[in-house]
């Protein structure tokens, strides 16, 4: 609203109206405070609930590989390892592809195709996690076991990553599914920030005899870099916390393994699988501490991601997210 009208309105306000507006403002503030309060509440509940194991194991909880509910020895390392490996696999696969798709949608695709392809990309994000998991169990994992993993082992078997028996379910299956699931988030943000790069930048590049690709690679992508990294971080946050699809295809074995073919476990999956079975107070506390670790990591990643996306927005005055 324009300053003139606002000031005039304020001067004209009677005490009663001023009171009404103050009540409205405070109700709105109080109810809007639910979002920040939820974040504080989640953190607090997890800290409180994990007191037993935090005091019993301290920081060793993160580095220990013990997971023995019977004797109450708990360590999160195999789960942390699984989360980090599956996320890394997902990012390595999804980031270049997603940026390429964003370039295609902004720079290359004929106009009639942009809407439908954009819709299909959004549909990737709308498919429920548990349906990805169902497909992973019955289609992807058997295919990996029979075809893809033996093929990889035969050609890249000199790398420890692609050695060992082909289980089908494991780090590779989880990473592949995650790559597909996080791609729409990276594409969405990248697409916005690439589209927000001013026309003049491209024109400048063309004036220097750049080809279309030269302009994209040399000018547009560097200008959109901050926003794209923000999108990548957002995708990373999704991959770290994704639960159902991963739980269904990772094999659920708390083991640290160099091979991507091997079954593993992640922070989110162990909570999903074992929380309702946790009978002792220590066991519940260990799972809540795993939740705390997961929450802390994703909180950090999301904060960094948002700051990056916001900086990109402010730079071009667009609204990317």
């Amino acid at each position: 609203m324009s300053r003139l009208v606002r000031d005039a309105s304020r001067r004209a306000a009677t005490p009663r109206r001023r009171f009404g507006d103050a009540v409205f403002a405070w109700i709105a503030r109080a109810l809007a405070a639910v979002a920040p309060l939820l974040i504080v509440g989640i953190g607090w509940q997890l800290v409180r609930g994990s007191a037993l194991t935090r005091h019993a194991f301290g920081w060793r909880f993160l580095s220990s590989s013990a997971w023995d509910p019977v004797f109450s020895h708990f360590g999160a390392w195999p789960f942390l390892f699984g989360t980090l490996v599956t996320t890394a696999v997902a990012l390595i696969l999804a980031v270049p592809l997603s940026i390429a798709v964003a370039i295609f949608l902004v720079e290359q695709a004929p106009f009639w195709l942009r809407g439908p392809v954009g819709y299909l990309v959004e549909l990737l994000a709308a498919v429920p996690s548990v349906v990805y998991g169902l497909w992973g169990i019955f289609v992807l994992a058997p295919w990996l076991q029979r075809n893809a993993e033996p093929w990889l082992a035969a050609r890249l078997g000199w790398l420890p990553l692609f050695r060992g028996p082909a289980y089908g379910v494991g780090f590779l299956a989880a990473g592949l599914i995650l790559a597909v699931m996080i791609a729409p988030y990276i594409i969405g943000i990248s697409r916005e920030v690439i589209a927000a790069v001013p026309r003049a930048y491209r024109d400048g590049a063309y004036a220097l005899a750049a080809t279309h690709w030269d302009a994209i690679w040399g000018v547009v992508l560097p200008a959109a870099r901050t926003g794209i990294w923000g999108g990548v971080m957002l995708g990373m946050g999704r991959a770290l916390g994704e639960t159902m699809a991963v739980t269904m295809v990772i094999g659920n074995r708390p083991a640290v393994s160099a091979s991507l073919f091997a079954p593993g476990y992640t922070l989110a999956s162990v909570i999903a699988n074992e929380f309702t079975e946790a009978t002792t107070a220590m066991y519940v506390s260990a799972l809540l501490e795993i939740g705390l670790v997961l929450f802390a990591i994703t909180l950090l990643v999301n904060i960094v991601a948002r700051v990056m996306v916001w900086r990109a927005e402010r730079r071009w005055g667009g609204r990317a997210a």
Partner: protein
Amino acid sequence: MMTPAPAADRRRLRRRHWRSRFMLALTAAATALILAPLFLILYYVAREGAAALTPAFFLQTPRPVGMPGGGMANAIGGTLELLAIAILAGVPLGLIGGIYVAEFRRERFASGVRFAADVLNGTPTIVVGLFIYAVVVVPMRRFSALAGGLALAVIMIPVVLRAAEEVLRGVPKGYRDAALALGASRWRMVAGVVLPSARVGLVSGALLGVARVAGETAPLLFTAFNNSFWSGYIDQPISSLTVQIYDYAISPYASWHAQAWAASLTLIAIIVGIGAAARLTFARRRKGMA
């Protein structure tokens, strides 16, 4: 005055143009590659799901393995009940949060709320499940539809908040000025002019939030839990399509697998339907404003 480029320069230029074309073709290939899994998933869900979609699937409750028939009527009903609870709790909070962030955007706290909503939106849903377990399930001493619905509401709030903010920002400045110039107080302006003119967009934002949580499984595992029977009670465990898909998918029985596919097809149809409704209402709004 131009001098003709030497042959070597011309060759280099041609090579650069070919490279440009090649790289851009690669981006098209990447798009095809990313969409391939989507088509594969939709194909399998349609093929396997359609084969298992029988009237019994929609009309009966689960039966033990080996008994013919059995369906997911209670899971469909449970999902709808959970969504209703989530809408009742999540939409008003998200909406008012969005109104606050849009109408008081100059306040420092407004950017804080927006930031918190974005962070909450990225919080793993299984962690939200743990939170609701601690604050609802433990005090009530049982899994319940209420706990499940509240978990979904927590996930829905930031989605609705941000969508509402976007829609409200789109309301023309002149509307607000006109209302204030007529002597309306601030809240009269919001309630009487801004909200009604943004009504359709707000509905579509709420639908987006519903579509986002309709496919959630992880936050329900230890809040709503599951139930093999019909239950409308808000303080009792309740079944949902997603948890039922998970339970059946990891079971060893082919007949349960078939039902999991059928449930997936039903679920995707519900989510795409809600999304289409959101799109249609939004398209109507745009046409109305043009």
